[in-house]
């Protein structure tokens, strides 16, 4: 299971890498540049994208819109994982096609369960070796 994570904070990258690889049994690819997300999604074909809202070069909203407008990436589920927690931003993120919105700070021990709650209905489940 491949997961693409767009996150520019190196400390949070470390935590997400640990959680996603150890508990989520995922192969994780990171980028800290907003404009790299769409090309990496196209080339890497991840099963899930975790997207920060505040990224250099492109905002999370712009990235989400670009992913959903591109036939090659529009079917990949996108979850915002962000410290931007205004209700309007959450609504806008979902309107642009994200399947979920998780706020920072998150509990690393329940993050996989929270992600699965969102993506299981779409046939994606983290934490299995498949």
């Amino acid at each position: 299971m491949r997961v693409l994570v767009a996150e520019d904070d190196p400390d949070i990258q470390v935590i997400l890498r640990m959680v996603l690889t150890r508990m989520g049994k995922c192969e994780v690819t990171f980028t800290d540049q907003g404009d790299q997300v769409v090309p990496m999604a196209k080339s890497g074909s991840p099963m899930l994208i975790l997207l920060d809202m505040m990224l250099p070069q492109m905002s999370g909203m712009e990235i989400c819109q670009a992913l959903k407008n591109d036939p090659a990436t529009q079917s990949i589920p996108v979850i915002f994982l962000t410290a931007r927690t205004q209700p309007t931003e959450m609504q806008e993120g979902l309107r642009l096609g994200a399947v979920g919105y998780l706020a920072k700070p998150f509990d690393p021990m329940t993050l996989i369960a929270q992600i699965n709650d969102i993506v299981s209905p779409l046939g994606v489940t983290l934490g299995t070796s498949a």
Partner: protein
Amino acid sequence: MKNLTIGFEQILHSTLSMARNSLKTDLCVFLQFDDGERLCVRAADGKKAHLWKGKAFPLESGPVAECLENKVVRVSKKSKTGLLALLESKSAAKSTFILVPVSGQSRTLGILVCGPFSAATAKSIPEDQLRNTGALCAVLTAHWRLYEWLSSFTPQVNHELRTPLTAVQGSLGMVLGGMYGQVGGEMREMLEMAQKGCERTVLAIEEYLTKQLPNKKSEFSEQQSDKINAKDLRVPPPPKKP
């Protein structure tokens, strides 16, 4: 907060509407300095839509400069320079506009423009009445500035606090969750204390910075000024006399 935005707009517009009715004139406009120190239409009440073609008004010498020196100015449109050219009226009998400076505690925020009046009426309007209307605009403008500041400051602080807390809470959670082996005894107590501190901080952020965040940014922008220019000044013509 969205309601606050709408409420502010309504109050400002109502203030100008009341001022216009009270002064028995056609037009009452509040020109406010924007962040680029340009004088733009902030709110208006009246029927002179065709007058407002430009986005910003020149701050040339003359009546505008004179008004900004903190005096109520009564000016005849006959001189037709700068702002007055934009206030051109079809009515020859009513040819005078009044410009009132709108001042905050430390700076001039804009100008209130009312008119046109006949020269005699313009002279008879008490300065206090004009200054009070200007003062009300100043209070509303200060309120609006505070709202603008809050709407950009609080989301930023919210974000800047949550990001490092993610690293702190995340690493504590993983250690306490046993990802690096069992933790027990006094070490566990200490780590749990740190984790509780994090949780309390998150609750405080939720309470003071997330729940009370303004929902949208200021609407005082070029787009909004255009909207006011094009639309809000357009009111139905007066009924024809039988």
